[in-house]
């Protein structure tokens, strides 16, 4: 038909319509936000650091040392009076005490250089059932290096932060997973079923939202016997937070499901004889998923902060486990803080991790709906 030909040809120059898949589109839009992109790489780096913490840590995080109590951070040097050295080295500190105030005084001993060695053998650790002893770096001749100083028991702050980050991220990840699963399930059920079921589920959700969380944690920690293992406390902590924090997500997902339920394609699926399960899995879930992913990325930083806050108060992660919040717990004393400010180093790590997750979440938010508007 000639008229068809007239209709089909549009001589206007148009950028080629891309037949990209959903993920490719999301990725392309995500890349445009440079901050989010950098954040994503940082998150990846943090995860690698946390997973292989023992490899990156120069010292055993639990190793105490009576000589090395409260040592300040050692700077890495390449230059000395003798000139440039390709191998980085640190100077050791000599501690003296003020005879009147008993205040510790640190003097850098520039005569003695401690060279760093890379991929060296050091303390033994377990990774996936293997016993390894290779580390990224350590000091030569079995000496010790403290790039971020030591705490009151002479333990290396840097090694402890690396290990603590793993626990903090694991906790935030676990809680988020629980919240996402429970929240999406409850939200979709509530929104899709509607009516009476929706009414009652929403009342439960409101109860969860109104629940005073802090008193609950405090009382649970208080009634736990002292003998309970730190692992049990950790699991309990995850379960408690997971059980209380899904409500907000459930609300949002319910709102989405309510809208999607009325879409013509859902009616069309009903008209084709689809069961409720099929509609939820094929029509509702894929369309709320992008929203859920965005909310989940936003949840992680709030849980990192909650963990830090509670562990700082001493009611979160219990020693000998290490978490970023627990490390800060050592700096809660004004006197300690004034004399040994390097104990605040975990704050930097918390700040960075919260910021990068938020930035990446923002980028995702803009990227996940490539079909809606330009």
């Amino acid at each position, binding site marked *: 038909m000639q008229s068809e030909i007239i209709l089909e040809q549009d001589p206007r120059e148009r950028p080629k319509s891309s037949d990209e898949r959903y993920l490719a589109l999301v990725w392309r839009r995500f890349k445009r936000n440079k901050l989010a992109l950098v954040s994503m790489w940082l998150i990846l780096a943090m995860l690698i650091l946390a997973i292989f913490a023992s490899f990156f840590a120069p010292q055993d995080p639990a190793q105490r040392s009576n000589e090395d109590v409260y040592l300040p951070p050692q700077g890495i040097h390449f230059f000395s009076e003798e000139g440039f050295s390709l191998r980085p080295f640190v100077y050791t500190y000599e501690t003296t005490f003020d005879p009147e105030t008993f205040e510790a005084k640190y003097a850098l001993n520039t005569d003695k250089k401690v060279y760093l060695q890379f991929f060296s053998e050091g303390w033994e650790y377990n990774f996936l059932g293997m016993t390894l002893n290779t580390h990224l770096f350590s000091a030569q001749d079995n000496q010790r290096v403290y790039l971020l100083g030591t705490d009151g028991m002479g333990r290396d702050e840097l090694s402890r932060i690396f290990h603590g980050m793993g626990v903090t991220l694991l906790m935030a990840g676990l809680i988020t997973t629980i919240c996402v699963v429970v929240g999406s399930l409850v939200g979709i059920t509530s929104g899709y079923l509607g009516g009476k079921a929706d009414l009652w589920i929403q009342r439960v959700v409101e109860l969860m939202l109104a629940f005073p969380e802090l008193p609950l944690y405090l009382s649970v920690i208080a009634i736990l016997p002292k003998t309970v293992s730190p692992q049990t406390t950790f699991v309990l902590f995850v379960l408690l937070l997971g059980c209380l924090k899904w409500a907000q997500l459930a609300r949002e997902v319910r709102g989405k499901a309510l809208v999607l339920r009325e879409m013509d394609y859902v*009616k069309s699926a009903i008209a084709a004889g689809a069961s409720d399960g099929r509609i939820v899995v094929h029509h509702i879930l894929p369309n709320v998923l992008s929203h859920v992913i965005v909310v989940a990325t936003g949840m992680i930083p709030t849980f990192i902060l909650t963990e830090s806050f509670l562990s700082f108060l001493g009611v979160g992660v219990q020693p000998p486990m290490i978490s970023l919040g627990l490390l800060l717990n050592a700096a809660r004393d004004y006197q300690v803080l004034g004399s040994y400010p390097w104990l605040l180093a975990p704050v930097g790590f918390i700040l960075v991790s919260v910021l990068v997750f938020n930035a990446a979440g923002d980028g995702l938010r803009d990227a996940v709906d490539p079909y809606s508007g330009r």
Partner: protein
Amino acid sequence: MNEQTLLVNAENIQVDFKTEGGIAQAVRDVSFKIYKGQTVALVGESGSGKSISARVLMKLLPKSAIVGKATRITLHGEDMSGYTEQDMRKIRGKKIGMIFQEPMTSLNPIYTVGDQIGEIIREHNRTISKQALREQVLSLLTEMQLPDPEKRIDQYPHQMSGGQRQRVMIAMALANKPDLLIADEPTTALDVTVQAEILNLLKRLQEKFQMGVLLITHDLTIVRKYADWVYVMQHGQVVENNETESLFTNPTHGYTQHLLNSEPKGTAPAVPADNPILLEGKNVQVSFVTEPGNWWLRRPEKRFNAVKGLDLTLRRGETLGIVGESGSGKTTLGHAILRLLDSEGELIYDGMTLHDRDRKAMRPLRKRMQIVFQDPFSSLNPRMTVRQIIQEGMIINGIGKDDNDREQRAIQALQESGLAPFALDRFPHEFSGGQRQRIAIAKAIAMEPEFILLDEPTSALDLSVQNQIIQLLRQLQQKHNLSFLFISHDLRVVRALCHRIMVMRHGDLVEMGDTVTVMDNPKEEYTRRLIRAAFEVAA
């Protein structure tokens, strides 16, 4: 025409858009002239660049738009290209007024209409007193033939109907007696009977104020009746322009001829009288709860009767049209027949009762009854490929031996709907409205049903695409002996496709009978009004 004063002279309008993939051309070299007191129509299908050309006049383009250097627009002989945003603010509303397609969203819901009209007058006349302002707004509303203007002036937009809101929009556009009125699809969102009233009002106001009117529309019948001069646009260019009558009687460009030929024509071929009855409804009623009851206060729930006891029959191979204005209950009736809504009364399909079946019991019947929705943008799941969309029904109902067989069936359904098999791997957003509607039809016929409910399948589409869909439906009906229930407000389409029609109003049956009989010889006043609105706007 030429002895009149030139109001707007637009030359070489060129607009590009920055998009992710690069620069997209939208309008290429469009020129038009508008004289004082003249109605100029820009006609074209969606995406032809007609709205963008008009918005260039107002400098109301999105940020991503790039206006070409050669673009030169003069208003009263004065070049507008150097105008800043500040200069434009003095022109918008004062010299050029604009009305939009959607009266529901163009008014601010939290101000009374009087406030909104008054604001525009005050914007260009700061010293006007409150009393004078109110009087001026009142006289404007009276001018717009809004019933009871004294009361309407203090009402909020949501208290008015679509037609009344569009009158308020026109009052706002004309508040400062502009020299030029841009009307961007002013009646598309309105019911047919209201359309004619609004257009007549515009015509009268134009003559009174001697304005130039730039009418943007895809509806040729409107153009023929109201425009003095027509510019036909295709792919961002003006392909033909002429005086209205000469253009309609003697179109020179192929595209114009194509547009003029795409009016739905013909009537449905007759159905053999001995075809068995497929679907029968007796005293079908549908009601919605508008206010839940209160057991404590002994207050019964309030119900709204959307369909009030209708009888209908549909034979095999027949098309029954259900016609009515928006809110007449026609879609509700259709959904009740497919048991997507609960209803009362009897529904009998091929000797089996439907009305006592719940969703589960309906399942064996689903593959025999299908539905095509009005809006092809919301009826296809954006996260599924066309293959998944078409095969879903087959998988649910166990049609096809294996994946290979289903693939073949899907390809066949696509081809019957006029699409190539390569569409299978794509997502709905990669297709145009007409193509999406074809996918929706392919989805329905892939199940090899006997009956398809067509819920305004053409009203969201361009005229020439409408015509293609109508022809497609006719072919499919003859090939597969399908029965259609065709819901529409567009009597022209109904006439071309339906054997019999049912006219509905407020949930009641107004009239029923053979399409030709009802159309040529309507018994009821309401039917006459619908027919007049649909066909006589054209005359």
